[in-house]
């Protein structure tokens, strides 16, 4: 067994420097690497490029890094629900690259799988297609999109083992699996870390080969963005 564990979040983030490109898992606030984000805030690194579907809310998730002006550029598909983000974007302080969600996922997956580029119909005929190679397949127009290049990927899983194997829960899975192994160094934080051998190999979602460092997060707030319920009557 190859041991992928690191003792602390400090060790997990070793090598993160200002100016780097980071992938950050999660959809809204669900499945975000809370402990790694808190540590990024603490280290004070700046000029980051963040690849993440959303940008958190004003006081949680990537919103915490935005508040400290640590992010230079965001690559996302949807950035509503964050006033500070909107302010920085409209004032020009923050560079923003908005791309279709499926393209965002596939550009991660392509990086993970060693595929340099791929064609997709998403964005054809829109401003997303500007400057991109176009090609028809079976009569339908597509645009060429490239795999991402990132220095670190920060992901969050439900359970993991010391070999770096990961299991996700519910819709907290989202972008996390496709970011594993899509950057030079993948850091996985888990709610529960167990010794190798305790997880059923049949149930593993992401094999440890895609994960460089793994640690158990100290605290998970798991904030709910839109609490919607129905009455029992």
């Amino acid at each position, binding site marked *: 067994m190859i041991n992928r564990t690191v003792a602390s979040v400090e060790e997990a983030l070793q090598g993160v420097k200002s100016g780097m490109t980071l992938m950050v898992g999660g959809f809204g606030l*669900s499945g975000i690497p809370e402990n790694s984000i808190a540590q990024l805030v603490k280290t004070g690194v700046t000029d980051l490029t963040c690849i993440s579907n959303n940008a958190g809310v004003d006081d949680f998730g990537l919103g915490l890094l935005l508040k400290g002006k640590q992010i230079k550029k965001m690559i996302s598909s949807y950035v509503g629900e964050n006033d500070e983000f909107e302010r920085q974007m409209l004032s020009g302080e923050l560079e923003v690259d908005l791309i279709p969600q499926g393209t965002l996922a596939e550009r991660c997956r392509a990086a993970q799988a060693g595929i340099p580029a791929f064609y997709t119909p998403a964005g054809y005929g829109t401003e997303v297609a500007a400057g991109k190679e176009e090609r028809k397949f079976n009569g339908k127009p597509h645009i060429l999109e490239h795999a991402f290049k990132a220095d670190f990927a920060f992901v969050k899983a439900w359970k993991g083992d010391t070999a770096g194997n990961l299991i996700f*829960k*519910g*819709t907290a899975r*989202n972008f996390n699996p496709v970011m594993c192994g899509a950057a030079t160094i993948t850091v996985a934080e888990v709610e529960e870390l167990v010794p190798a051998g305790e997880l059923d190999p049949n149930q593993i979602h992401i094999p440890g080969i895609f994960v460089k460092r793994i640690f158990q997060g100290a605290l998970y707030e798991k904030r709910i963005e839109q609490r919607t319920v129905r009455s029992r009557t």
Partner: protein
Amino acid sequence: MSLTKEQIAQRIAMEVKDGFYVNLGIGIPTLVANYVPDGIDVEFQSENGVLGMGPFPYEGEEDADVINAGKQTITTMPGASFFDSATSFGMIRGQHVDLTILGAMEVSENGDIANWKIPGKMVKGMGGAMDLVASAENIIVAMMHTNRAGESKLLKKCSLPLTGVNCITKVVTNLAVVEITDQGFKLLERAPGVTVQEIQEATEGTLIVQGDIPEMKIA
């Protein structure tokens, strides 16, 4: 009488057929789930990674790890599954989803749609909308016929940045049901009590009216 948002959702629910996998956008489309007729088996897909979405949870049973694309807490139905974002868009791009229902700011008579950006004002992003409209074969738009300023949202040509081109099949508004054809918006049904002339006046794009136009039947 023009339709309420709930009635628009109710009318669209009649387009949902037994055995359909359906993707619902945020806003009016989300309401469609409430009106799917009994005896019809459908599964709702949410692009953040769930197929077989159920209703909102009972109070106290909310799970931060189970949400829909609108970030609302949800439940799952028997037979549901969770998956990653690449797989989710594989379902969409690979045309495994039978029906897509989404909102729009503008639709043009050739089936273009704009729903993600108002330059200089609102830039929230396209989310999964561009992937959906580029690949889905059956796309129904749910929206009001005119904007808050009273201007038509069914246009000859969209004025806002596009989400997709030549992709919309049908539009259901508070005034009418129209189909996108090579000649323009073909009027299929009118809201109860709304005249063809009123629809004509609220439609900037080419409106094709052939024969008697029936009123929508909403239970």
